[in-house]
């Protein structure tokens, strides 16, 4: 039974959906967060975080491989029965909702503080919600196409960033591992949030056309994200001095400020505007899987009504209350916590029982 045949994803779409979900709000603040904890050795934490993410992703794939036609929601109902399963789906929908809300509120807040400082946050959100609805209502197939297209469309950004190369001082990086391994390992914790996105494989796997590439694809996605994180972090570390970097909330944006042409200044504004595409590829999959889960739970096929309600709720919430940066930080922490549970702990815990459960039935078949 192929329930999800209509929305099939190609391998590239699968890679870029995961990669897009990973590269999001984290990139803007990552160099500072890492520098606060691990100093200029933070870039090593990224590699460690990448290794963890790859291990967790491979665990997820190894679980999903045993039930190639089922998303995590189907699996939960299968294992825990109707009611407990539904409760679990609610939790997952909540997790996705938290992720989506975090990214959207961050987007609105960054735009508000960096470009449109006089526009109220909810107006920006209403405005963002329109393309949001247009794209997500098309379902996963459209999301996949979107993620892939956006990846190619934003390829110029790291290249242009390279023009800041003459301003960098690579000596800032030395000595490597100056304070021992402790800070580096602590720093890994803050990269976990940035690598979140691979857990979408729980949903994406059954939609994938050629499942033999699932593991390879997810490794490629993680590696791509790691390269982008590394690129930005190394650049920030060599551009700003080790003390200066911790003073900026979003060092990545300040990095772009120095790139100037005779006809164009303040590249950061253009960069940030284009960065909306990256932020959209992070929030859209989470938004989609929130409404996908809720509509599946309610037993409706059409996710569009739920999507409209969810977007309306977000706008309404932001209209009633504009979150300040402390609220945003709390939201991020909530998402990290959920991500650790859903992305790292769940696969680690589930892989053993599923492996044991499935084994006998396979032997019986043979």
């Amino acid at each position, binding site marked *: 039974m192929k329930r999800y045949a209509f929305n099939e994803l190609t391998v590239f779409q699968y890679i870029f959906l995961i990669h897009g979900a990973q590269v999001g709000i984290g990139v803007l603040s990552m160099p500072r967060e890492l520098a606060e904890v691990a100093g200029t050795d933070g870039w090593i934490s990224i590699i460690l975080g990448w290794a963890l993410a790859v291990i967790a992703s491979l665990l997820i794939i190894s679980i999903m491989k045993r039930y190639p036609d089922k998303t995590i929601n189907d699996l939960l109902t299968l294992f825990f029965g109707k009611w407990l399963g539904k409760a679990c789906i609610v939790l997952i929908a909540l997790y996705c909702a938290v992720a989506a809300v975090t990214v959207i509120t961050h987007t609105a807040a960054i735009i508000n503080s960096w470009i449109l400082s006089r526009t109220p946050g909810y107006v920006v959100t209403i405005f963002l919600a329109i393309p949001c609805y247009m794209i997500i209502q098309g379902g996963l197939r459209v999301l996949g196409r979107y993620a892939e*297209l956006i990846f190619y469309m934003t390829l110029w950004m790291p290249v242009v960033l390279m023009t800041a190369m003459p301003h960098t001082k690579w000596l800032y990086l030395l000595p490597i591992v100056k304070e021992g391994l402790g800070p580096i390992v602590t720093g890994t914790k803050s990269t976990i949030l940035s690598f979140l996105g691979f857990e979408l494989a729980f949903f994406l796997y059954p939609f994938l056309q050629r499942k033999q590439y699932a593991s390879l694809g997810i490794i490629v996605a993680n590696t791509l994200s790691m390269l982008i994180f590394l690129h930005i972090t190394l650049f920030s570390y060599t551009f700003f001095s080790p003390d200066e970097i911790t003073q900026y909330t979003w060092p990545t944006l300040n990095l772009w400020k120095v790139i100037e042409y005779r006809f164009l200044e303040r590249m950061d504004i253009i960069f940030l505007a284009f960065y*909306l595409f990256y932020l*959209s590829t992070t929030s859209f999959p989470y938004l989609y899987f929130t409404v996908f889960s809720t509509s599946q739970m309610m037993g409706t096929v059409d996710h569009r009504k739920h999507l409209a309600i969810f977007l309306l709720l977000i706008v309404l919430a932001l209209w009633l209350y504009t979150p300040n940066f402390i609220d945003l930080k709390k939201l991020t922490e909530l998402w990290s916590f959920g991500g650790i549970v859903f992305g790292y702990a769940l696969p680690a815990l589930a892989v053993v029982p599923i492996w044991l459960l499935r084994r006998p039935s396979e032997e019986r078949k043979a």
Partner: protein
Amino acid sequence: MTLRGWLRRKRVSAKDRIQSFPARPLSNSLSENIAELQNIFTLTPDLVIRTFESSFVEGTAAIVYLTGLVDKNSINNNILRPLLKQQARGDAKILDRISVGEVTVAYDFATVEKEIFEGSCIMLVEGRNEAFVLETHGWPQRAIEEPQLEAALKGAHQGFVETAIQNIALIRRYLPNRELKIKEFLVGDRGATRVSVLYLRDVVHPEVLQEMEDRIKLIRIDTILNSGELAELIEDNPFSPFPQFMVTERPDSAASHILQGKIVVMVDRSPSVLVGPATFSAFFQSVDDYSTRWLVATFIRMLRGMAFLIATFLPAVYIALISFNYEVIPLDLILSVGESRERVPFPPLLEAMIMELTLEMLREAGVRLPAPIGQTVGIVGGIVIGQAVVQAGVVSNIMVIVVAFTAISSFIIPNSDMGAAVRLLRFLMMGLAALFGIVGIIVGLMGLIGHLIQLESLGVPYGSPLAPVRFSDWKDFFVRLPLWSMKDRPVSSRVIQSKRQGDNRPRGDGK
């Protein structure tokens, strides 16, 4: 789709108004038949009924036709003359004397009526309850000319005309192949329009073809005057600004699309044909691309891509930079822009709107006017836009440059439907830029992408080969690689037989 349901209901009720006559059979008596015909064709001064005696028929015979729709030479020379000649009959039957190619026999008045309207000559004979339908049509026709809208520098200089039969012949000249199949449908209850669907049977995907046929069969309407009307009735998304069928007047372009695995829909009486499934990229290609050198063609393709971006976004970017994000422009530049805007009383959005609307009006005024007056409009507009407006301090110099640039860019897009879509989008983007600056433009672009990637034409993705990305089709997209490198038909048109050519790469002498 409540709206669609509503439209459907209206259409059905429109059908109920049309009275359909039961098919009455012809009688044996000639006079009865003629009386019945005169009854059907009341108030029809162009109906000709000629009765005559001939040695080839038992008794009297009559021919009936609508003058103007028939070829009079053919009737005089091939029908009347041999029949009126006094000659021994011998074994010859009636039809043996008539030198007309296509002859059929009709037995009821409904068919006779339809055939008369289509320009056939009907021959009735005393004592026979049948009518000979002689194909003699020869309605007023235009000579074959080069289409004005799609002039080609190096391509053929033939364009379609208003007669489907001739148009089919024009395509057959390019594709003398038995796999070129033509399916005919009659659309319209009041004036049945012959709609022909042309395709290569072993190339076109049957599902796509079925989709096209189903959509055409579902139409219930008085009549279709133009292929544009048909397109509006069978397209996928009626609310999209983008054309979902390619409309062309060029037989070579139609033939090349058929070869790519697309379907051509021809509407009788309309000189333009529909090509589907269309993709977004196809609207930026022209036949000339394949007859110029590929490097040149690639350059022109890229020019068009750039023109699309400029025509859609340039005024919006201007508005955003002037009224919102002026910190992006370096100080010297912003000073010179400010200097030129010093006397301008309008906010940038209004300034841009005034100029863009003026330009659109000039264009629209020039389009339908005869050439000499059209030129006058151009000169008047040129003076008004170029100088007077700036000197009067209504708009700034830079705005004039921006408008001129967008105008030129929008004319570079080879397809006029796509050009019109771009012009509409431009105003939307201007509005967004005035509301939110650069963020507005980016979100507008996001929405545009979102719309393009889910649009479909006959169930085939419209954004292909960009979204979904199909790298194998990129050989004929932003770049136009040498013809010998395009060995397969485009994946985007969903074909079942993809091989197009063998290894034709020229190797020069050193083989």
